[in-house]
C-alpha cells in the first residue's frame, strides 16, 4: 500500500499524490536526525575525516568557480532551464521516450521503488544473467536496488571505488560525491583484506595501492559482465541522449562493455536539448569536485551498432517526485543536479555527517528532498537539521533556495501536527535540532541576526514564525548573550573557515556519481 502525503494547503480538494512507499528504499532513517546526530557528534574520527574533506573540496570549488567570469550567468541559465523543464515535464518525458525508442532503446515507467526494482530484476533475468556491475547511482540507492537484486538471487557489484568500499564494508554511503568519506585508509585496508578474496595479504594502506587492489578486483568482472546498471546525470528530451559524469572509468566500463545496459533515472533528470548540456557540463564538475571538468563524461543515444551495449533499457522513476512537483514552494528541490556542493558548505552536515540524515540524500538537499519524497511525517526532523545560514543557497549551481524550502517544510510540519494533535510537537523537534546551532550562543545570535533568516521567515510570516522564533525567544530569555559583532553568520562562517584554501595538488575528488551521482554524478 502506498503511503500518502498529508493534505497540504496547496492541494485543496485534490487527492494527494503518492509519496515514496514505506518499506522499500533508503529515504527514511531508523531514528530522528537529532538522535542520530547526537551519536555521530561523539565520533571524533568521523568529524576529523569530514572536516578535512569538506574543507578541501570547498576550497577547490571556490577556486575553479572564481575562474569563470560568467558563473552567475551559468547558474541563472541552469535554474531557468530546470524551471522550464519541470513545467513541461510530460511533453519532455514523452519526447525522450520517443527518441530513445527510435534509437533502439526500450523505455519503462515505474510508479515507485518497488515497481522499478521489479522491472530491473525482470530485465536482468531476461538477459540470462545472475550478476550485474553497477555505476554509482543515487536513484538505485534510493530504491534499494542492490537489496532487491540480492533477494532475487542476483549479485550486484558496485564499481565506483567509494561505493565498493561501502559495499564491502557492509556500510552506508555518507556523502553524495565521496560516499566513503567517513572511512580512513587504515579502515579501507582492513575492509579489503577481509572482503576481497583475491587481495594481496601484504597490501599497504597507500591510496595508490588500495586503488590498484580495487582495479584488479573488478577488472575481470568488467570484462565478463553481461549486464550493467547505471544512473544518469542528464537525459536530453529532444535526442534521447543520456549522460553519465564520472572519474575512474568504471562508469565507461559499465556503459560500454556489457551486452545489456539498464539505466534507472528519476523523471526530473531531463534537459530539453543537447545544447543545454553546455550549461550543466560547466556547472556540475566545478560545483561537485572543484574540477574544471571531471575525467570522463559518457554520452550515448539508444543503441549504436558495433559500439557499446546492443540492448538498452531506460527506467523512468517517479517514487514521490510527482508529490514534490505538486508543492509550489518545495518543488525546486527537483532541480538538484546532485553536485553535493551544499553538503560541503553546511556547518550542520560537517559535524553530523551523512548517516545522521537517515536517507541516501544527506545534507541541505537531503533535508528538503527526503521529507518531500516520503511525506513530511516520515522525516519530520530533517527540515530542522539546518541553521538557515544560507551557505547552501549561495553555492547551489541551480540556485535552489534551500533555506526557504526548509522553512516552508517546517511550517507544513507544524500544520500537519496541529491538524492531527500528535506529539511530539514541532517545537520539541525544532528545539532538539536547533540545539545544534544553539550550543554556541554566538553562532545562534549571528544566525538570527543575519538578514537571510529574516528574509526567509518573512516569506510566510505568521505561519512559519511559530516554529523557530518562539524557540529563539524562549531560549534567549533565559540566557545572556554577548553582544553580537556586526557580521553575518555567513561572514562569520567564511572567516572561521578562511583556512579552506585549495590544496596545491591539482584536481580533487572523484567525479560526481551518475545522477550524483546520479550520482554522483
Amino acid at each position, binding site marked *: 500500500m502506498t503511503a500518502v502525503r498529508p493534505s497540504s494547503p496547496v492541494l485543496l480538494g485534490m487527492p494527494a499524490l503518492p509519496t515514496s512507499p514505506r518499506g522499500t528504499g533508503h529515504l527514511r532513517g531508523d531514528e530522528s536526525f537529532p538522535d542520530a546526530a547526537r551519536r555521530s557528534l561523539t565520533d571524533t574520527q568521523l568529524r576529523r575525516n569530514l572536516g578535512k574533506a569538506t574543507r578541501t573540496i570547498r576550497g577547490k570549488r571556490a577556486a575553479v568557480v572564481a575562474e569563470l567570469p560568467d558563473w552567475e550567468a551559468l547558474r541563472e541559465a541552469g535554474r531557468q532551464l530546470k524551471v522550464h523543464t519541470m513545467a513541461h515535464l510530460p511533453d519532455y518525458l514523452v519526447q525522450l521516450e520517443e527518441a530513445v525508442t527510435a534509437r533502439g532503446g526500450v523505455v519503462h515507467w515505474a510508479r515507485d521503488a518497488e515497481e522499478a526494482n521489479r522491472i530491473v530484476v525482470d530485465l536482468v533475468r531476461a538477459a540470462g544473467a545472475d550478476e550485474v556491475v553497477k555505476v554509482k547511482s543515487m536513484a538505485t540507492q534510493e530504491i534499494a536496488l542492490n537489496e532487491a537484486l540480492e533477494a532475487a538471487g542476483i549479485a550486484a557489484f558496485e564499481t565506483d571505488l567509494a561505493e565498493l568500499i561501502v559495499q564491502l564494508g557492509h556500510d552506508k554511503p555518507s556523502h553524495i560525491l565521496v560516499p566513503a568519506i567517513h572511512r580512513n585508509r587504515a579502515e579501507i585496508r582492513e575492509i579489503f583484506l577481509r572482503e576481497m578474496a583475491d587481495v594481496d595479504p601484504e597490501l599497504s594502506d597507500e591510496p595508490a595501492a588500495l586503488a590498484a587492489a580495487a582495479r584488479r578486483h573488478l577488472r575481470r568482472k568488467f570484462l565478463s559482465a553481461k549486464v550493467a546498471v547505471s544512473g544518469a546525470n542528464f537525459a536530453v528530451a529532444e535526442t534521447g541522449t543520456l549522460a553519465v559524469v564520472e572519474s575512474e572509468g568504471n562508469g565507461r566500463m559499465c556503459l560500454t562493455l556489457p551486452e545489456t545496459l539498464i539505466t534507472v533515472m528519476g523523471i526530473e533528470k531531463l534537459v530539453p536539448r543537447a545544447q543545454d548540456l553546455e550549461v550543466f557540463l560547466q556547472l556540475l564538475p566545478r560545483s561537485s569536485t572543484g574540477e574544471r571538468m571531471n*575525467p570522463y563524461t559518457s554520452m550515448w543515444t539508444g543503441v549504436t551498432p558495433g559500439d557499446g551495449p546492443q540492448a538498452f533499457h531506460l527506467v523512468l522513476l517517479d517514487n514521490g517526485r*510527482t508529490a514534490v512537483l*505538486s508543492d509550489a514552494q518545495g518543488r525546486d528541490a527537483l532541480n538538484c543536479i546532485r553536485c553535493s556542493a551544499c553538503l560541503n558548505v553546511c556547518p550542520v552536515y560537517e559535524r553530523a555527517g551523512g548517516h545522521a540524515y537517515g536517507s541516501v540524500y544527506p545534507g541541505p538537499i537531503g533535508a528538503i528532498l527526503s521529507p518531500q519524497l516520503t511525506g513530511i511525517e516520515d522525516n519530520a526532523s530533517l527540515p530542522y537539521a539546518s541553521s538557515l545560514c544560507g551557505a547552501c543557497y549561495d553555492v547551489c549551481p541551480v540556485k535552489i533556495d534551500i533555506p526557504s524550502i526548509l522553512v516552508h517544510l517546517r511550517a507544513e510540519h507544524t500544520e500537519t501536527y496541529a491538524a492531527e494533535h500528535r506529539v511530539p510537537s514541532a517545537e520539541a523537534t525544532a528545539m532538539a535540532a536547533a540545539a545544534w546551532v544553539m550550543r554556541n550562543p554566538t553562532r545562534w545570535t549571528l544566525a538570527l541576526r543575519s538578514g537571510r533568516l529574516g528574509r526567509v521567515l518573512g516569506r510566510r510570516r505568521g505561519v512559519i514564525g511559530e516554529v523557530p522564533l518562539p524557540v529563539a525567544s524562549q531560549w534567549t530569555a533565559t540566557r545572556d548573550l554577548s553582544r553580537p559583532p556586526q557580521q553575518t553568520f555567513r561572514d562569520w562562517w567564511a572567516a572561521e573557515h578562511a583556512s579552506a584554501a585549495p590544496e596545491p595538488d591539482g584536481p580533487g575528488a572523484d567525479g560526481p556519481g551518475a545522477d550524483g551521482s546520479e550520482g554522483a554524478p
Partner: protein
Amino acid sequence: MSAREEVLARIRAAHAAAPPPDLPYATLARDYRTTSELDHEALVERLVDRLLDYKALVRRCSADELPDVVATALRERGVRRLVVPAGTEPRWLAGLADDVEVLADGPGPEQHLSVAALDGADGVFSACAVAVAETGTLVLDGSAGQGRRVTSLIPDYHLCVVLPGQVVADVPQAVRALDLTRPTTMISGPSATSDIELNRVEGVHGPRTLEVVVVEG
C-alpha cells in the same frame, strides 16, 4: 492505468494543483559566454596548460614532425602492441618502429578486436573530434580514427592527437561543434579517484596514462 499513464497523470495533477511558472524555451536566459576573445595561439597555450594540470603528458609539434613524435612517444613508453582504430590516418603512424605490432580495430563488428585483445595491448592511438582549451578536455565521438568507446578505455596508455582546427575555447563551443547523439566520450586527464582520504590517485579503471600530441600550425 499503466505506469506510464499514471506517472504522466500525476505530473498533470501536480501542475494543476500548483501551476508552474512558464518560461518559454526561447526566452530562457543565456547570458553566459559562448565566444572567446583568445586567438588560436592563446587557446593552444591554455589547452596545454590545462592538460598538464590534469597530469596528462603533452608533446607539441608541427604536422610534418607528427609521425616522428608519435613514434618517439610510443618508444619511450615501451609500447609494443598498439591498438589502432579504423580510419586512422596512415601517415601519422609512418614512423612506427618495426617491433611495434599494430592491432587494427576494424570498421565492422567482424573485424573488431576482442576484449581480451584490448586488455592485452600496451596502448591505444587515437584522434579526437574536439579539444576544449578552458577545461583541458578531449572529445572522442567514434568517427574515423577515434575508435569504438572501449578502445580508448581498456589499454593502460592512451596517445591522442589534437589537430589545430580541433581546438575550441570552452564547453559551449565544443557542444555546438559536436553531434552528441554519436557515442561521445569527454576525457579530461587520466582515470583518477580521490575516494581515499581525498588523495588523488591516477589510474583506476581507465588508462593510467594519457599522452596528448598537440599539432601546431
